[in-house]
């Protein structure tokens, strides 16, 4: 599954950069790739780890401790 996900991300990135976005600034590519890699990693982790920590949990606990309920 993770191989499929990586291939999908590569296809999406390729189509996006070639067909939909006329890349005038080549310097954007590193950031683009970093964001895509982060997204793909979270996606794969999401599929394999059932209780992946979400930011909602800690925020919720913090707020509940502040408002005291």
């Amino acid at each position, binding site marked *: 599954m993770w191989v499929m996900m990586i291939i999908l991300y590569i296809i999406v990135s390729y189509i996006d950069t070639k067909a939909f976005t006329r890349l005038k*600034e080549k310097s*954007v590519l590193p950031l*683009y790739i970093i*964001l895509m890699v982060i997204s793909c990693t979270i996606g794969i982790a999401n599929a394999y780890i059932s209780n992946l920590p979400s930011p*909602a949990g800690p925020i*919720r606990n913090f707020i509940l401790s502040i408002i005291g309920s």
Partner: protein
Amino acid sequence: MNKELISDQQGINLTVLFIFGSTLVMGTGGQAKGDTWIAVMLVLFLSVPVLMVYARILSRYPGKDLYDILEEVFGKYLGRAFSLAFIWFSFHLGALVLRNFGEFMNTVGLPETPKAVPIIMFALICAIGVKSGIETLGKCSSLFIVGVFSLLFLLAFLTIPNMKSENLLPIMYDGFKPVLQGTFSAFSFPFGELVVFMMVFDSLKKPNSSYKVYLKSLVIGGLVVFFISIRNVMVLGADTLGSVYFPSYTAISRINIGNFLQRLEIAVSIVFTLSGFIKISICLMAATKGITKLFGFKDYRVFVTPVGLLMVNLAYLVYDSIMEMFEWAFEIWPYYAFPFQVILPLIILIAVELKARLQNKNKQAKESNTD
């Protein structure tokens, strides 16, 4: 790159649809139960000063969005730290609305389909919308608003036989505290969320029209939310209202005119899809613009797909269940969103005004020196 511009009317349409977003389906001010309509009425008045703060900040720097203003007022580093907070807020809000859509589809229409499917599909459409630009979104909103209002009026008319005015009574049975809690909740969702438009309203054709756009949208959107709340209470009653996930959907499903006109709840899904598209697109655009400016690039369109995909991931992992989603939306969100919606804009306004006064003083001092 030519700057994209939208008219005031398109700005109002976008803002009204943003207010509708998931509010019309999920409801707002749930803590007030049968007195939701009072909470919404109160919040209409309480939102005015906050929206004036947003408009004042924007009108001080015509043609600039919040990220530019922050960098100009607070300098490069502190300005970017503030920008980061607003990027996170827009990104998180977009992911939450995306999840709302996924849960709604999963609950009412596609229970066997994995949640990820509607979320990915919807995010893809929103990404295409954002890539097309704010002008396209503005034109879309002009079209959508006609459909949304037609459906809302039609549904309001058809639910009249199911409305029972006695469901509004007793008023404030549990006292004023739940109403206040509902007001706080209704402010943060959806009226305070209009802070996101500070990152988009640099595109208004008339630079100083943000006051007009914010106020008109608040009146139009707020009144519709008020009427929807009162309709839901009158159709469902306080007890049922508190026990269903999507009150508007349940209220509309009760329409039955002569065993012929029924099963009209699809109309609620259409309204949610159209307004949700605008809300997620605006959030995605705000977050992408912020990231682009944070790293010093010009064209935000390049980053729409990766940021949209990250939003999909966050939307997917942010809650474990629909119960957690509603607990977050009504119990946690008001406190979590308050700093982004009120405290940070107030700090920014104070800084903007102080800077303007300092500049005026310096200008006057220079003029007196040259005289």
